[in-house]
């Protein structure tokens, strides 16, 4: 690939952000990318700010994504998504916000506030709805959002590779559910965004 891609995933501890990053970076490596990823997990706390930064590209040097460098942000919680996006997203980058609010501290309109802050390309999808209502397990939210991220076609990875990696990392009982969540995420993104 020609230029590097800086990808961020943000949300709350307990939502499976770290696992998302691990699956995605493993798939990226399998598809021949040079990749580095760094998590900023919340220490112990459930529902505290968590994000993961993935940098893809031959020329990447530093571990972390700098302010204003993220090409793609997948936000599992919209208020957290605003907070991360307003600092890290590129003005011409893409932000995908899950619409279910968990943390109440925010501007009240995360997508609008991001656009006001100069990040024009903000898409909102009902990922929690897919996880909780269509799949019956809110814990699959991370796989739904992973699907949405892959559906953007910005990430240099094959859908099949991601699916294979999901299978590898899922506990046996959850393999099918996770793959289904991933596929529904792709579908929901294509429909909604």
């Amino acid at each position, binding site marked *: 690939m020609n230029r590097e891609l800086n990808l961020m995933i943000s949300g709350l501890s*307990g939502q499976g952000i*770290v*696992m998302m*990053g*691990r699956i995605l*970076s*493993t798939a990226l*490596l399998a598809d021949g990318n*040079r*990749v*580095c*990823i*760094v*998590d*900023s*997990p919340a*220490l*112990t*706390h*459930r*529902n*505290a*700010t968590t994000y993961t930064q993935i940098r893809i590209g031959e*020329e*990447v*040097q*530093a*571990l*972390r994504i*700098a*302010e*204003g*460098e993220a090409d793609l942000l997948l936000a599992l919680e919209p208020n957290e998504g605003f*907070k991360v996006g*307003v*600092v890290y997203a*590129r*003005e011409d980058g893409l932000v995908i916000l899950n619409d279910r609010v*968990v*943390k*109440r*501290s*925010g*501007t009240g309109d995360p997508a609008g*506030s991001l656009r006001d*802050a*100069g990040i024009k390309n903000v898409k909102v999808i009902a990922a929690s709805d897919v996880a909780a209502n269509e799949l019956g397990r*809110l*814990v699959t939210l991370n796989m739904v959002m992973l699907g949405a991220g892959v559906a953007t076609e910005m990430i240099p990875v094959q859908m099949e590779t991601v699916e294979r990696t999901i299978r590898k990392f899922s*506990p046996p009982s959850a393999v099918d559910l996770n793959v289904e969540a991933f596929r529904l995420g792709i579908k929901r993104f294509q429909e909604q965004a």
Partner: protein
Amino acid sequence: MSTETATSEKDQTATEKYATRTFMKYSSAEVAVDAPNETVLLNGNEALARGCIEAGVRVGTCYPGSPVTYTLDNLAEAAKVFPSMHVEWSVNEKAAYEVALGAAMTGVRAMCVFKNVGLDVALDAVVCSAVDLGPGGLVLIVCDDPGMGATQAEVDIRYLAKYSSIPVLEPSTMQDVKDFTAAAFALSEAVHLPVLVRPMYAQCYAREPVILGEIQHDIRERVPHYNVRDWHPPHEEVKATLHRGPTNWAHARFHSEVPPAARELTKGWPNLADVVRAVESFAGNQLTIKDGAKVGIISSGLAYRETMEALKVLGGKSEVSILKLATSYPLPEDLVRKLLKQTETVLVVEEIEPFIEEQVRSLSAEMDTHAKLLGKLTGDIPVSNELKRSQIGPVLGRLLGRKYEGYASAERIARGQEILQHLPVDPVVARQCPGCPGTAAAYALKNVARQLGLTPSMQFFGYDGCAGGVPIGEGGITLCMGGGINLAAGMHHAGLKGKQVVLCGDSNFFHAFMPGLVEAVYNKSDVLLYVMDNRTTAMTGHQPHPGGFGVTAEGEPTKTLDIAEIARACQADFVTVVDPYDQRETFAALKEALTTTGVSVVVSRRTCAVVAQRQKGAKDALIFDTTSQINRDKCLAWTVEMAPCEAKCPINQDVEGYVRAVAEGDFKKALAIVRETNPFPAVCGRVCNHLCETACKRGKIDEPIAIRSLKRFIADYELVNGVERPQRVPRTKQEKIAIIGAGPAGLTAGHDLVKLGYGVTVFEAAPVAGGMLTYGIPEFVLPQQVLQDEIGYIADLGVEIRTNTALGRDLSLADLRNQGYKAVFVAAGAQKGNQLRVPGEDLDGATVATDFLARVAKGEKVEVGRRVVVVGGGFTAIDAARTARRLGASEVSIVYRRSRSEMPASEKEITEAEREGVGFQFLAAPVGIIGEQGRVTGLACQRMKLGAPGPDGRRNPEPVDDSSFVLTTDMVINAVGQSPDVAAIAAASGVALTPQGTIVADNLTLATNQPGIFAGGDVIKGAGTVVESIAMGHEAAISIERYLKGQDLREGRVSQPPVTGANVLPEGMLTSARQQMPSLLENERIQSFAEVELGFSLDQAIAEAARCLKCKSCGRCIDEFACIAIVAEDGGPTMDLDICAGCNVCRVVCPYGNIEEVEVIA
């Protein structure tokens, strides 16, 4: 007892589930794979472990701490594959280091992992051993944490390494992390020193592709041996030259100062110069000289990568010579010299302290070079936090002569950060996970401390050992692990009163609290050690510890040590184990622990909620299969409109609001809340009849909150600490209003109207404003200065007060109209004392209490005889009697026709009078005043008995036949009530009067029969209370504004009684005594008119305020229990069922039983 015991059989499955720890995110079995040259994605901890495994490490030790300690989890996975390996969670860092050292002394390779603030714990052993190492390689992995992402101190561990003569390696890429760690063992063996690898916090949480190397199985399987002769000089001759033993000898060796006798022994052992040579050839040190480059960079670790990224953005790779340092101590001196010689400016970039920079400076000083050095010492690179390319780039740009531009405009980033700063802080940040046993344990402690009244003086030390610390409240003192119990002992021995509370975690207890516990018992400290035993090292990733599930790092079963048994063996004075989910049990245990003198140990034992949920099979599993919901139809916060105190108060003061502010120590806010509805805080704080206290729900449990005294405290606090004079309210309305009488009713109306923007003049007949507050209440109850300060506050707002000006005497209604006053509020009070209507009232020595008190207030010389009798049962009678005592009367008695309990004066006033020597004649009524030569000599009385209750509920007095008696006295003061004296005003204004002489006014609107003239206060009611007058002042202001605007006076002013929940009482409350008001001693009192009551101290005020039940807002579940799953919404608390872990503790926390079980169907 539902307490979990550490060793019960039911633990078996839990132990197995815990031992597998399938939920670990930062370790994997892949680290032990024998697959050289394969590329795998490793995180920092895996890479560190892999490096050790490839190097053939045999023993690995660690005490859990920062994320880097997950390295040990990875080694533990390897130990399951390689049976000769031993991997352990040690009890603390010192033990960890010593175990690893012991292993290395036998010739095998050993490693030890530390958090940045962990090496200091082992420093004693490190310093002694670092130069005295055996043949096996020993590697220390210590993670530094710039920005304190995971630890509590931003320290630079490299200084400790240098102090201990230990070489330091700093990896940049993940490949470096793995390779340097593996190479560190060989380096250690080559230089006979431990070697320290210093990754960064961010590296532990990063993943990058790493090419695996070979695992050196043969090294791991070395045969351990130990020969004392390898370690100690064999010859007497050598020993004699060593003086201080082997450490001294080895240290001398390191610095090439080995005594001649020992040289033979140290032959082949490197010294510092050899170590420098060894690091010089260390493959990780890479010097890239670019021809003609004037700028040089020396950098290490992650800072190197940020610098390279900045250089990439600047497009300056060909213009800079670069030394990538792998060894920051000692420096590869030749490489540094080479760079310094060939460049003009060298920028040193490293994380945290200028450690490399100082050494480079030192080297450069010895050289004939003019290279200019830039870095942290010159202020070009920040010292704190993780370095970013946005900080390095501009400096590099300056050196290269061009501007550094990042990917995003700095303005946008700044704007974004600005927005973030203004967002409210999410409370979640400082809270524990849902279901956390620590949250429950902390609530029990706070609850019992508050209920026992210990809150103000109790200090909290330490913390529970997890995340941000359990929500115990402000004032926690943390120092280092194990420090709290000794700090508390120090404060106790210094003489600080009260039992101090020390929190500690379970792993914490084993780590460093055991010596402190022994210290406390042996040296007789007075402390409660509250151990939050969640059976795992929760914060750092649920590592096992000696008190947990009886499992080792490698998953092998082992013994479980019971913290309580250890405490008992240490002979603590009180030891018990509680289940914090059982709040009643915990509460009772804490109560006993806090009231036992000496050392108490309470072990709050309950498995970490995260572990419990995982053991149930899923991270969102409910601990008890049910969840809880708040019953909004009953919850006080959702239903109560006014607290009983507020509802009962004639001016509906937000009592709960200001009492809460006092409890929080925010006295300024408290006063602001009082002032919202009351312009007389200091006055009401002294003389209010406090209906609020009669309504207070606490009174049904023990004693009501001392609300009046708290109000006084708030007002006095401002008086003592500097009054902020109010701004004059700008006049926005044309109309002027005249107020007749500067008592509480008139001044309150004036206060309100001025605030609405009207012009207000208050006309006061007397020379001093204040009405009955000035002339009717004695100085020792309400000092004039206090009153006049409050009147001054009202005047400062813009109320004009004209004294010596009476309506009907000095000016007429027409005068007021002519002067432009559009409305009048008559609030002239009731200052005329009623007659006794018995013979002899005209005798010399017979007086009316209001006149008597007014003369004293005006400073007139008032003669009283030796004996004084006061007739009446109200406040005025008490005030007159107490005044007479102060004027010199030695025998003062009060005659009252009913019994003590019927007296309108409060019991407190009666007691105060008694304490000052005032006697009482109850059930006696005057029938005539007896005199001789025109002077009073006695009061003829008749005995009374109590008959049927009258319309007011009080039993009516009836005369007892043939029961006359005479009280000998020099003075009779009549205090049987007051009436308005408004004939002149009525004449001047045309307002109608009742037969009793009060003005006829509408109860609701205070309108008189004359348009635009309103009347309120005692002038319409007869003698009333201060707060009633204030209430009528408010109503008058409302009516007058409506009148001036031509609005309906009545609309919307009658409201339904508010929901108060007055009959809903909390369960399980301990009684706590109301604070006693400090006052002058009896013998001091009658010597002067000094104020008798002295006011609460700050501690008293806070303790008293803490007794408040918060009948309106309640907030126990949100503010005090502080469970993350219960969130505040506008109406009240709301359960977040997505988060709730189903611990059910909130159901007990709600003392009203309004949090109810919800069955969850799977």
